[in-house]
């Protein structure tokens, strides 16, 4: 008996070892056969069809894919469940999968579960890439450090051949470009960081925009923002003018405050910009807004979710938000604030306030996506084609039609309008039954017009200059602002402490060809301001270059 048990155990161990050693070599297998047309492919026998498909695409269900329910529940089969429960989204996902495979006979699409929106995404992705089980594409966060880590395939050649390359938002292209090579593709939802505001509060306060509607004017300054925040504040009613994280409260970008500048000694690439008086003004302004005027509600425990809660609960008149969310909510949840407060008359959107010299912090961006660098060139090309079809091609059209039909059946507004409003690409067909002007309030359309017309300044990475790690750098800056807001410490002491931390831990590097790259970078920024912000160039930038941008 013992020997039998022993034998079984040994066999189990042996089997598990062989299973571990088995490699899924489908990824690397190359077809020796000639390329077949879709028609040729349909004439193959099942076994030959299976054999012919040697380009595997792993599409994440969280972006582009669908997953069938795991349990049929009360239905006889899973397919029955999908059909009879009216799950048209899943059916369309499967239809698109079949269509794409038919258009690209060598490709086999596998929909996989891969959550790219959770906090553990980075570590999960690292493990998945090491195990060669990553999805074909995924959201590209923490740029450019993740590019330096080798997390994305080089897309430059594919981009050059693509007819809609130029339609990607400028900010997204810049974000994903390192030393002239492009590593990310702009997602299908263009937006920007904008201000979400309560129209009813603005109406009460008598603040109207150029359309005669409650809200800030579409061209407003940071001083206007501060004044309005104070005006909307009403402690007796528990109202704050603004709610947000402990940071610069939108001050730095429109005032052209760069928090790191070239190190004039040449010992490092960058140094913390503690000499710019704008930094003191910024810290002073947020300290006063939070503590003296009490127009800004902020806390170390406040994140995106919390300040949106403050807004929805009627405790904040303005918050920072992401542009596409508002038109979508307008269509999906028109009575979010009650039957007597239609969404479009309650929630407004405006672009970020400008600086005194007309500089804007508005950056047109999308969620950029990167592609698995371990894929073969055929897989990479197929994944790129998939994204094109999903973003604006056949699959996009199918998805939108389905969405419109579902909305009609369920008697609700179709979110197609929000998708098209935020779409950076040119769709294959016009899918709108009525023009966007008839659907959305004026401030939504005006904000989107401004987003589309806005420009993003050049980034150091494009010229091969190393940047400090984005997350940690932002954390250090937030720490500086939170100290300024929560303590009475001298601002000079806070700045000097932050400079010491940032210079020692985050900017302690120097590149080989820094000098030349830095010159090119500064020249590009100068040209950018001359072209898009001439007033800022004349009044501020020229002086700033002399003071803070001297290449050693």
């Amino acid at each position, binding site marked *: 008996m*013992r020997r039998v*048990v*022993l034998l079984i*155990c*040994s066999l189990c*161990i042996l089997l598990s070892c062989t299973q571990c050693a088995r490699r899924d070599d489908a990824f690397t297998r190359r077809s020796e056969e000639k390329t077949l047309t879709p028609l040729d492919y349909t004439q193959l026998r099942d076994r030959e069809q299976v054999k012919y498909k040697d380009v595997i695409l792993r599409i994440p269900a969280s972006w582009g894919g669908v997953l069938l329910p795991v349990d049929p529940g009360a239905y006889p089969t899973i397919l029955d469940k999908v059909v009879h429960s009216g799950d048209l989204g899943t059916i369309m996902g499967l239809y698109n999968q079949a269509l794409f495979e038919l258009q690209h006979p060598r490709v086999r699409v596998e929909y996989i579960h891969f959550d790219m929106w959770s906090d553990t995404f*980075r*570590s999960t*992705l*690292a493990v998945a*890439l*090491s195990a060669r089980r990553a999805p074909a594409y995924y959201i590209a966060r*923490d740029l450019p*450090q*993740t590019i*330096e*880590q*080798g*997390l994305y395939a080089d897309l430059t050649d594919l981009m050059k051949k693509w007819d809609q390359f130029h339609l990607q938002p400028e900010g997204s292209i810049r974000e994903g470009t390192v030393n002239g090579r492009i590593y990310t593709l702009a997602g299908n939802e263009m937006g920007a960081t904008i201000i979400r505001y309560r129209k009813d509060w603005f109406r009460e306060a008598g603040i109207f925009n150029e359309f005669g509607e409650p809200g800030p004017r579409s061209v407003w300054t940071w001083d206007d923002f501060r004044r309005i925040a104070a005006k909307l504040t009403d402690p007796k009613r*528990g109202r704050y003018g603004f709610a947000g994280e*402990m940071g610069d409260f939108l001050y730095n970008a429109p005032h052209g405050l760069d928090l790191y500048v070239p190190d004039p000694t040449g010992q490092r690439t960058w140094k913390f910009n503690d000499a710019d008086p704008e930094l003191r003004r910024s810290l002073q302004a947020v300290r006063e807004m939070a503590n003296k005027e009490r127009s800004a*509600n902020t*806390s*170390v*425990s406040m*994140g995106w979710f919390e300040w949106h809660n403050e807004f929805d609960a009627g*405790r904040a008149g303005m918050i920072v938000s992401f542009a596409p969310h508002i038109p979508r909510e307008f269509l999906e949840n028109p009575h979010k604030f009650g039957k007597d407060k239609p969404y479009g008359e309650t929630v407004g959107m405006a672009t970020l306030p400008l600086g005194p010299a007309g500089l804007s912090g508005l950056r047109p961006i999308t969620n950029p996506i990167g592609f698995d*660098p*371990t894929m073969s060139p055929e897989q990479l090309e197929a994944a790129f084609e998939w994204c094109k079809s999903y973003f604006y091609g056949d699959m996009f059209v199918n998805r939108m039609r389905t969405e419109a039909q579902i909305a009609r059946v369920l008697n609700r507004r179709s979110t197609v309008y929000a998708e098209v409003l935020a779409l950076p690409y040119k769709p294959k067909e016009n899918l709108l039954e009525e023009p966007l002007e008839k659907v959305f309030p004026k401030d939504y359309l005006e904000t989107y017009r401004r987003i589309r017309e806005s420009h993003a300044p050049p980034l150091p990475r494009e010229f091969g200059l190393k940047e400090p*790690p984005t*997350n*940690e750098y932002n*954390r250090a800056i*937030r*720490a*500086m602002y*939170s*100290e300024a*807001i*929560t*303590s009475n410490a001298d601002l000079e002491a806070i700045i000097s402490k932050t400079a*010491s*931390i940032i210079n*020692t*831990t*985050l900017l*302690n590097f120097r590149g080989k060809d820094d000098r030349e790259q830095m010159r090119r970078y500064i020249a590009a920024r100068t040209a950018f301001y001359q072209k898009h912000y001439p007033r800022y160039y004349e009044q501020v930038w020229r002086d700033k270059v002399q003071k803070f941008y001297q290449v050693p």
Partner: protein
Amino acid sequence: MTGRSISYKHLSAWLFTLPGLFVQFFFGWFPILFAFFVGFQQYYLVKPPEFVGTANFREVFSDPLVLTALWNTFYYAFLAIGLTFIIPIFVSILLMEMAARTIRIMMLLWFIPVASTAGIAIWKYMYNPTLGLMNGIPTLFGMERWGIKWLDDPSLAMISLVLPGLILFGPGLIYIAALQNVPEELYEAADLEGASFFRKIRLVTLPRLRPIIAMMLLFSIIGSMQVFELPFIMTGGGPGYATTTVVMYVYNLAFGAYNLGKATALAIVLFFIIMTLIIIQRRFFKENLDD
């Protein structure tokens, strides 16, 4: 016993132990060994690593934030051990003096909030300066000026993190379980000798709890030196760097700055600090009653 049967016994023992050993090796020892490898590398998530010698350790020792994080961690450990380790010992002893039914109810109440992550998230809202319960209750009684900023006050933030531990950390249950095993005869003998209540605690209860206290102290030191989720969820390390602990800084370095080599080097430094503390604790706080 024949030589054949001994070798068979050994072989079968090894074979049955092997899966467990594999798991222990790959998930227990291997990561520690691997950390020593990574600590000397410029380590990338996908690209091959580059050997950098002791550069990561030199960076760790020259980083001013490491000192801040270490100070915060020791401060947290001091508060946590003081409040959440020592207080439950005395609460448990006093609880044992109550009726059996009360003990059972109290144990139940003690056990319910041990769902820690959810508990931490709730505490985050309880501390909210405008909406939270901690400021809301005094306001209800007309004490609007109470207005403590809790997590937003650099001098209060750390103690605000420790307070939930009084409820969420459940060593009291373990002490009560241990106290129930103290022989009743010892107390009876003490009563006959005319020992007072506090004398009984000093001479009977505490010595009998000593092995448990030693073990719990060990866990408490390790746990509080590795504290991560409390500051991560509640304050993000702020205000300023007032609640940034070492493990949180390791996490930020690894998955915020993608500096896996330096993060691992700091983790190794923390490993040696904890080891040192444990050796000191084992040396000076013996578990054995006879020692």
